[in-house]
């Protein structure tokens, strides 16, 4: 199998369509006949990344690359950037406003969930520029 890549733009505050990119990513993996365990991990990581773009960013792109060894999910946004990444990674910490929390978001679980479902997790952020998250899930025999 050669490398396969797809990109999905995600708009700020678009709660109406939020989750569609993750659903499409899940469908691609299903069509490739991947194992349900790896599909679940990718779906959780992609969903959390997508919701973060909708809730916190000025908009961005989620992409997936599938190669013979791994699945890589990348979320890149156009800002505003995260001031304190260590704090943002802490379970329960969130900067989401009340109206977002009332919808059941902003539990401070997004980034920790992404890290948990990845074999390799990288987050880079520059205030005023943007944030880039890379989640790598290694494929095992049977995936």
């Amino acid at each position, binding site marked *: 199998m050669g490398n396969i890549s797809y990109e999905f733009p995600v708009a700020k505050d678009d*709660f109406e369509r939020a989750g569609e990119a993750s659903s499409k990513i899940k469908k691609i993996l299903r069509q490739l006949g991947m194992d349900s365990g790896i599909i679940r991990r990718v779906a*959780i990581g992609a*969903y*959390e990344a997508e919701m973060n773009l909708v809730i916190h960013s000025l908009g961005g792109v989620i992409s997936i690359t599938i190669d013979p060894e791994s699945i890589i999910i990348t979320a890149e946004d156009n800002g505003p950037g995260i001031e304190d990444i260590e704090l943002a990674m802490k379970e329960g910490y969130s900067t989401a406003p009340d109206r977002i929390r009332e*919808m059941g978001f902003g*539990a401070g*679980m997004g980034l920790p969930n992404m890290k948990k479902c990845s074999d390799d997790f990288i987050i880079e952020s520059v205030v005023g520029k943007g944030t880039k998250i890379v989640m790598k899930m290694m494929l095992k025999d049977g995936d």
Partner: protein
Amino acid sequence: MTVKEICARLNLRSLTGECGMDKEVKGVYICDLLSWVMAHAHAGDVWVTIQTHTNIIAVATLLELSSIIISEDAEVEEDTIKKAIEEGIPLLVSEKSSFMVAKDLIDIGIGS
């Protein structure tokens, strides 16, 4: 047990007609925080919540949940119902609290 049987035995109101009613319910997860549900609910679970916006359908679809029970008669947006039908996720409503819905589910043998 199927969603249809649960709907009948708990006297729930289906907002999505017969859509997805033949799905098998394998367990129950109760929570109103979406990231917690994403991290902990399992395929086939019925999800009990008071959240009613369209994103609950995205969560249910991604996790392949069997159905959603909205407790305490919380009002469900039209868009949520439309999306639920599109994705084949049964949306059921109870006038009871999440706790009482859980009790009823245990009484009929779900989760045991």
